[in-house]
């Protein structure tokens, strides 16, 4: 255990909730709340897994995911995507861009935990 998760999310209450859930399970959670500089943050932190919101200020989660996949260093990094826009086409776009898991808000805590465990184990 003791793996690093980077949570990129701009809603403070949601950050609070996810941090609580994962910390209790033994993960170390870092957060970043802006689309801008998110890539640099990933590169410097080298997390084992990223939880990525779609609607971020300045740069969307889709654009961040595309940049991650384009970079050889982060191409295989597990990414769990969260979105409040639950339409089918959003999920399809995310899968085309190479997302590992796609979860629609509002989520159940156990779902998040199970997905994070599965992705980190696979990674």
């Amino acid at each position: 255990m003791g793996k690093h998760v980077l949570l990129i999310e701009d809603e403070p209450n949601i950050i609070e909730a996810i941090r609580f859930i994962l910390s209790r399970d033994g993960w170390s959670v870092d957060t970043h709340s802006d689309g801008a500089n998110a890539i640099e943050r990933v590169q410097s932190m080298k997390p084992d897994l990223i939880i990525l919101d779609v609607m971020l200020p300045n740069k969307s989660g889709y654009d961040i995911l595309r940049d991650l996949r384009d970079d050889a260093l982060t191409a295989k990094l597990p990414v769990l995507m969260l979105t409040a826009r639950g339409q089918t086409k959003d999920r399809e776009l995310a899968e085309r861009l190479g997302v590992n898991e796609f979860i629609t808000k509002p989520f159940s805590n156990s779902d998040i935990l199970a997905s994070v465990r599965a992705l980190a184990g696979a990674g």
Partner: protein
Amino acid sequence: MVTFNLLILVSLAYVIFLFAVAFFAERRAQQGVASWMRAPLIYTLSLSVYCTAWTFYGAVGYATRSGLEFVTIYLGPTLVMIGWWWILRKLVRIGRTHRITSIADLISSRFGKSTALGVCVTAFAVIGTTPYIALQLQSVTLSFDAFNGTGRADEQGLQYTAFWIATGLAIFTVIFGTRNLDANERHHGVVMAIAVEAVVKLAALVAVGIFVVWGLGGGPMATMAKIDASPMANLELQTSRWIGITFTAAAAFLCLPRMFQVMVVENADERHLGTASWAFPLYMMLMSLFVIPIAVIGLDLMPAGANPDLFVLTLPLSQGREDLAMLAFLGGFSAATSMVIVAAIALSTMVSNHIVMPIWLSTQKDGATVSGDVRHVLLRSRRISIIAILFLGYVYYRLSGGGAALAAIGLISFAGVAQFLPAMLGGIFWRGATRVGALAGLSAGFIIWMYTMLLPSIGVNGVFPEAWMQGGPADLHWLRPRALFGIEGLDPVVHAVFWSLTLNTAAFVIGSMLSFPSPLERLQGAQFVNVFDHSTGPRGWTHSGAATEDLMMMAQRILGPDEAQTLFHAEALGQGKGAVLPDPSPEFIDRLERELAGSVGGATAHAMISQIVGGASVSVQDLMAVADEAAQIMEYSNQLEAKSTELQRTAGQLRDANEKLTALSVQKDAFLSQISHELRTPMTSIRSFSEILRDGANLTRPERAKYSDIIHAEAIRLTRLLDNLLDLSVLENGQIDLQLQSGTLGQVLDRALASSGAATENLRITRDPDGDDIALETDLDRLTQVFINLITNAAKYCTADAPHLQIRITQDGPVSQIDFLDNGAGIPQASQSLIFEKFSRLSDQAAAGSAGLGLAICREIMSKLGGEVRYLDGTGGTAFRVRLPTGTQIAAAAE
């Protein structure tokens, strides 16, 4: 001594004889047994109407004055008959095909049935022929006078004689020429009488010639010697006059109304031209054979001062040969009468068809439906025209003084009618010729001709004062009638012919090139120029099996192969002919015409069918109907085009509407997506924290309290969001009912500040009391809502260390302005237009938990209240201005 009365008696007897000939010929023609009357010889003899009293008497006079120059008058027509035979053939073909009744009809038909041209040509022809008729009157008068013994009657007596001759000729012509109305304007009787007269005048002239050469001159050899010895042999020929007059005579031969009448209108068979082309020159040669001998011996034997124009008559008289003189008199009488009759008939036809009929028809409201009426009007107008034309000739005779040489008068006439030449030849050989060009050319030519030739001929000081002739009008030298444009030294005749025909042709060509022909003109032009392609030869169309095949081919082109074959096959079966083509029975042709009419229009169908079946020519009426149909079809296609443009426009509008709908749909998708996001976000927190609380384990009390607070706050956020959405929806759909109340601006601001309450505890608010008294009559609750929104926005988003909001009221005319200014960072210019849109939140404001609907709601409310809310740029902080019309009474209260 032949008495005057005997002379009149002989003349009358001769006229009655001619009348009998004409009557007889007419009768035979009606019975259809007079094929010999249509012989080429009769046609050739009728052409001799060219040889008038001018040639009969005048040629001798001409020869005594100018020697051989008189030959030009014969040379011109000879050249036409031999060299321009093909022009005549074309004229005759056109005349027959298009049922042309006169030269005016030819020119007006060619240029689109132009009434103006018809009138023009008719008027010019009348004017041009008048001197010629005067010439006949003069010669007959002189010949009567010559018999009267003295040869020098007083002037009054001559005029008296001329008047009675004119009257007699008028009666004679009316009886001859308007006895009946033939559809083709053919006068078999008249032609026959003229042929007889041609024989009489030739016989008379030859008889006098023989008498002169053998009886007086002592045989041919002695006569030749006398000719050589006479001063006439030394008369030099002026080349310019020789060429000019030959050309004028040739042109006049083609254009003279009477020549057109006998040559084209009275022509029964095109092939007669072939005979005439050698026989008529021969006739003219015989007519001119003895001119020089008579002139030379006349000069020799007659006393000095005797009029050489009358030698033909006076030579036999002086020798006591009254029988021969009587024959010569009858010859001259024949020459004069034949010319006057034919010319008067031709002119009266033109006057009645081109001047009287158009006027009469235009005065008939219902159109000429009763043919008897038309016939009556036509006949009467022709009779009156004939009388008027002869009267005009008499007037000209009186005006010109009756003293001029016959040849000089004849040349004036020739040059006048020669003006028709460019329009006529251009019309039948040049498809580019137009009505405008023809009118311009004719007018130009005739004006010059009248100015340089006709008017100066009417005596010294007759029309133009002598000073004018010498110095030009108003001393404009270049306008002298005998030296136009400063060209001096030319013979007057050559001068006039040269200028009139040159300017005529130039105006015709230039006018044609600068104008566009109407559709009918174009059709007629093609028909005339290509007459040999469109009409059948003299043998006529014989019905043959080919007709059905031609009909079939035409029907296939118009109806399409399948339909045409079905039609023909059905007809063949009906006729019991099985698989072969049907006979072109009248019933079938009628049916086919109806079928074709459905496709191409009735007139076109009729014209096409008659072209194939009847070999009949297409008449002008047919062509006009075709042109009308073409115009209708064009009109229809124009309408179609307009409709298609309209359709295109409609399609464009539909496309625009569709694009708008698509855009709206995209907007709606985006809106729903936004709402989904805004609703799910607080729900996510609520769900997640409620699950944490439910699981319960290992939560500290502060944690438990904190998470409960979050759930509570997010629930409130959710409720507010739903409230705002509903509010906006109501406002946008215009379903809102404004609750009008009275109050003051100060009261509303107080309420708003009180309601903002807790939210604004960190915000320092200052208010300027100015304008608090402004009275309002509006929905105070909604206005309060706007103020609350702006105040809480300042509280939420003002990033200053010591947030401060300043509220002040100003007046802009009838509008009150309430400004909300804080000391925050302000809003970047690029975002200022966005903040009033739904869900527009600047990125760093997410924390404030707003859905971005507040300003959108404010904007909707203010618009409903008749005012507006907008961002105020350049205040240093964030600033909003609410504008509300409060009227001038409020402005007064504000002070």
